């Protein structure tokens, strides 16, 4: 077991790669009541075209299957695992993103029991035709719920504008039609492919003794047999550089319009430190441009084009990436063109000054300290970073090292008119 110390943060973390390939991280948090653990596989909604182990042909699976599998893992022959966790005083949950499926619990007692329950339920799949059918009704309601949510429709509408071939444009839960094709055999095939320990990461944060916890995990894993699995082969269709659609307007039953401007990232193929630096540079740039202290924000808010729902964000994983800016507005077209011209100005270097950079760095460092108060943030973000060969605890040193040149380069590379796209939600009776 390796011990890693973060002096400035006064934290330490323990790490070991087990013989079956599982990465285990433990971060003791003294003074906290809660222990939070996540067991995550590098398997998300985009992994829909792959080579199952031992087979010669690639398979393509129905949209929404990773998320469906997440739901189904909770059900066992003798009932559902939620029951087991709550008997042990814990609350459990799970989520599926584009690139990950995470299972988690948090509890303030019986940590060892809960940890075993977590590992075992994820590693013991139980699917039957009957329970698969039953789940279709529940997930159907989940999908319909999102259909009525204008912010979700806006977000996915924007991604669909950007990506023509890449599966990131597929809704994580799929559609009622696509999930109707899911069978128990397909679930097992996905499971066998992606739930091997060598494709997974276990993170535990809380007031625990790392030696004891690591011992328990090793003992648990030692009892289970896993064949070595070669690297998983995924297939992604070639994606064009430009956006698929320049604009999409969704008419919905709302009173206020919404507008997001998106920028599709150019060639998001980095990983590791390079990716971290790029991601932080873009985030700092967006903060300088659109943060509440910026001239742009003052102008947009002052002229009534935006309200306090205004936000901006950058997402990147290997193979896809996008920035988005916007929020509720009464004039979606005016807002879109304003945002685009502000972005083009930034590409020309306007507003990107050393003063702004230094202030934003301080802001980001403070935000990082705030974030590491949260066990959830540490576990979830650390895992995401690790899957991209990045290190969460490098954030502050890299932030400190950013120069104005880094920011300008990031802006220049990201911002390009042909990669802009707009998605709007407008009230049905308007236009």
């Amino acid at each position: 077991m390796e011990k890693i110390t973060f002096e400035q943060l006064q934290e330490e973390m323990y790490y070991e790669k087990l013989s079956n390939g599982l990465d285990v991280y433990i971060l003791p948090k003294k003074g906290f009541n809660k222990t939070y653990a996540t067991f995550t596989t590098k398997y998300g909604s985009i992994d829909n075209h792959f080579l199952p182990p031992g087979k010669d042909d690639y398979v393509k699976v129905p949209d929404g299957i990773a998320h469906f599998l997440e739901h189904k893992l909770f059900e066992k022959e003798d009932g559902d695992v939620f029951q087991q966790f709550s008997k042990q005083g814990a609350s459990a949950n799970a989520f599926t993103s584009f690139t990950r499926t995470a299972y988690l619990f948090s509890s303030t007692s019986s940590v060892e029991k809960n940890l075993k329950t977590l590992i075992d339920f994820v590693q013991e799949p139980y699917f039957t035709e009957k329970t698969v059918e039953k789940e279709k009704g529940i997930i159907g309601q989940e999908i319909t719920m999102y259909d009525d949510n204008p912010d979700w429709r806006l977000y996915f509408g924007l991604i669909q504008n950007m990506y023509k071939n890449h599966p990131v444009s597929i809704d994580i839960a799929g559609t009622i039609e696509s999930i109707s094709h899911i069978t128990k055999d397909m679930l097992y095939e996905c499971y066998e492919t992606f739930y091997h320990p060598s494709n997974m990461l276990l993170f535990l944060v809380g007031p625990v003794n790392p030696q004891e916890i690591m011992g328990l995990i090793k003992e648990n894993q030692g009892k289970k047999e896993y064949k070595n699995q070669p690297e998983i082969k995924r297939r992604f269709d070639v994606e064009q550089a430009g956006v698929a659609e320049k604009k999409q307007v969704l008419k919905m039953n709302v009173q206020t319009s919404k507008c997001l401007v998106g920028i599709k990232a150019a060639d998001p193929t980095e990983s590791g430190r390079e990716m971290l630096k790029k991601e932080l540079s873009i985030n700092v740039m967006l903060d300088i441009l659109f943060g509440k202290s910026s001239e742009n924000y003052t102008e947009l808010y002052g002229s009534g084009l935006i309200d306090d729902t205004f936000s901006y964000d950058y997402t990147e994983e290997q193979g896809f990436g996008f920035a988005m800016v916007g929020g509720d507005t009464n004039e979606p077209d005016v807002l879109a063109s304003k945002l685009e011209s502000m972005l083009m100005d930034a590409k020309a270097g306007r507003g990107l000054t050393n003063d702004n950079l230094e202030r934003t760095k301080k802001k980001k460092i403070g935000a990082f300290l705030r974030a590491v108060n949260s066990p959830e943030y540490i576990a979830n973000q650390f895992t995401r970073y690790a899957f991209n060969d990045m290190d969460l605890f490098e954030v502050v040193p890299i932030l400190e090292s950013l120069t104005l040149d880094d920011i300008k380069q990031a802006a220049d590379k990201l911002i390009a008119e042909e990669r802009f796209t707009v998605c709007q939600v407008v009230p049905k009776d308007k236009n």
Partner: protein
Amino acid sequence: MAVISESITDMKGYKLHIVKTEKFKTNTIVWKMKAPLTSEDVTKRALLPYVLQSSSKAYPTTSKFRSYLDELYGANLFVDVSKKGEYQVLSFSLEIANEKFLSDPDPLLKKGLQLMAEILVNPLADNEAFDKETVEKEKRTLKQRIQAVYDDKMRYSNFRLIQEMCKDEPYALHVNGEIDDIQQIDEKNLYDYYKKAFKEDELDLFIIGDVDETEVQAIAQELLQFDDRTPKLVKLADGAQVEEKTVKDQEDVKQGKLNIGYRTNVHYGDEDYYALQVFNGIFGGFSHSKLFLNVREKNSLAYYVASRLESHKGLMMVMSGIEFENFELAVKIIREQMEAMKAGEFTDQEIEQTKAVIENQMLETMDTSRGMVEVLYHNVVSRQNVSLDDWLQGMSKTTKEEIVDVAKKVQLDTVYFLTGLEADK
């Protein structure tokens, strides 16, 4: 050992609550102002904190003000307006890095408190009036905030339930106020209201973090002083037999939203309040509860179905998203679960399980500074002095008989259904 230790000091016109803890890498400052919820003031109160947080005398533009927050290592300032029973509570929160985790020895806590005081007592105002432009900008945003409730159908249906259920009670008011009242507000009458609120509201300052209590007291004493006051209290009118009613709205939605409101006739601080907590947990609070198991797991009717308490008002609300044609069936199943609760059809194991999860949830809440403030503030609102240890002990001692007794007090008041345009066919 106590789970947390809170020290409370009477200051000039307000109470100072300090929780000293080394858990966090930041310090949190929360200022709360409480007054009865009234139709006359609700909209002004909803606007006031947003005007105050947008600028001050020393930082006369939002941009200058926000730049200063960035300089303070991104001190995070936000305001919030909420309902606690029939009170409207304004919260100003500032979370700021603890300088011991920075290479820069800037005394951030003191600067944070100075900034909090600055926005509260030194607003951008002249001749007994706020800055006109600021007020107009924030009026526009408030209007959009009120409208936005309609666009989120989950929030909207919950709001509609309460509106129907509490028709002639102040609780029916929306916390953000009424759109029609906004135009009558101007920089002058809002300033008058600001003066009134700081004279009459019940005021509390919370500081959570690795702080020196004596130092914090001295700073607060220097920065914040107000006149003494006797906070206005709301009398809860209860006990009337309610008549069940069903209300349906039709909208262009794909999923029906079923919201059911119950009167619990039990309030925070009452003897049977702990039993109510456990009752709610067994009935619908968690993923092992009767509602989740029967509506979702057994019948696949919903993705989400849960109940939650409004402890200060004595309400319990069930919410779920279902297909339009499943309305009757879902209501029937939910009613059956309530009958089962009243008939004591739940096991000792369900009780133990629920208690364990509630305790877990409560202790977890104490791992965030905001959670701590919210829990401690229950005592202010209910004028009780329940420590967290008392709370946990009271809850864990609850018996099955007490839970059944509490279940019998719970009355269904209103079934609300937001259904689709085509649903009548």
